[in-house]
């Protein structure tokens, strides 16, 4: 129970920080909607199918935006030390950060998907399920990578480089679930990705933040 309590306390802190600063989510919304507008002009000819693929590019980069900011408060003020010193299990830090990042991402996607519906047409239930599963996987793996990059030089550049190859399978699963007739396979694949990287990040996070 105390593990859940730790995660809740830490995640609550991240939500509170965002509520106070409003630094990340509004920027993500504008970025995601802006990306969709850009796609309108980047796609010659028949658009709706290709737009579905590009929607996933938008989701990927919006997630990247959130992840770049994920440890911003900790980084600026050396606060990762304080969290590592606390007696909670270190994986709770990862889980809380992932939960908070997923919350931001879902909030942004509400706007982004509404904009997509307006610009290009609706999406099926499978696509929405894929978005939810993808959020989990992107944040699970992404928070681990963000924690790796946070101590490095040129970290703003480092995270995208680390993130893209790892996030590519999510893109495949997401696009597959959105455009093919057989979304179940792709949803299954996304669930598998989520499970595998959640376990890896849960077990590996401690080593990334401690010496």
């Amino acid at each position, binding site marked *: 129970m105390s593990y859940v*309590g730790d995660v809740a*306390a830490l995640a609550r*802190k991240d939500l509170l*920080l965002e509520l106070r600063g409003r630094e990340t989510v509004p920027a993500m919304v504008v970025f995601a909607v802006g990306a969709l507008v850009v796609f309108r002009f980047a796609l010659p000819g028949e658009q709706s199918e290709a737009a579905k693929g590009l929607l996933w590019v938008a989701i990927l980069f919006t997630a990247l935006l959130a992840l770049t900011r994920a440890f911003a408060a900790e980084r600026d003020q*050396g*606060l990762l030390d*304080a*969290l590592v*010193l606390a007696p*909670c299990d270190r994986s709770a830090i990862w889980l809380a950060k992932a939960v908070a990042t997923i919350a931001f991402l879902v909030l942004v996607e509400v706007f982004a998907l509404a904009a997509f519906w307006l610009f290009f047409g609706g999406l099926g239930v499978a696509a929405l399920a894929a978005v939810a599963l993808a959020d989990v996987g992107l944040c699970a793996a992404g928070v681990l990578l963000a924690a790796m990059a946070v101590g490095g030089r040129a970290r703003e550049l480092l995270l995208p480089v680390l993130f893209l190859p790892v996030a590519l399978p999510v893109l495949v699963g997401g696009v597959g679930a959105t455009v093919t007739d057989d979304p179940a396979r792709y949803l299954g694949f996304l669930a598998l990705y989520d499970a595998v990287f959640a376990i890896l990040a849960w077990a590996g996070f401690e080593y990334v933040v401690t010496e």
Partner: protein
Amino acid sequence: MIRARALSKRFGTRVALAGLDLDVPRGGFLLVTGRNGSGKTTLLRLLAGLAAPTGGALEVATERARVGFLAHEPLLYRQLTAVENLDLYARLYRVAERRERIGMLLERFDLWDARHDPVGTFSRGMLQRLALCRTLLHEPELLLLDEPFNALDVEGATLLDRELEAARGERTLVVATHDPDRLAVPATARLRLA
């Protein structure tokens, strides 16, 4: 409480600590002095478990939950209020009767009136006082204080002296400072880093 043998720490090619032997008994008060860059902070980070030694052996006979570490940075979220910051740490350290404990500390360090202000609006001295609250919040068994007098005015320094006096003998204390004259409470041992 603390036992170090031939303790050393390198950062790449830079040697921060070399061949340090150290014994601090339970309830002891070690004063660490030395110039800036002499390895005081490194030693405290090693003791806190934030860094791993590159050589030698180090034993700290307590658990993470019982260590209080006052670092260079106040380790507080600037966007959150004083109460919110302390509440987060109180939850993580599982402090019993959080509200009462937080209220008591804020009063003792003369921060009660500012308790609902974002920490970002605090002066340096107030930040340091709040950081001390954070460090003492869970009544640690081992207190590691890195330059605790930094930015404190006369009043703040008096408050700190009172805390140190109260902690002496009760808790194990390691205080690092470049200016030992400010310390009113006598230490049981001194370590001078060159």
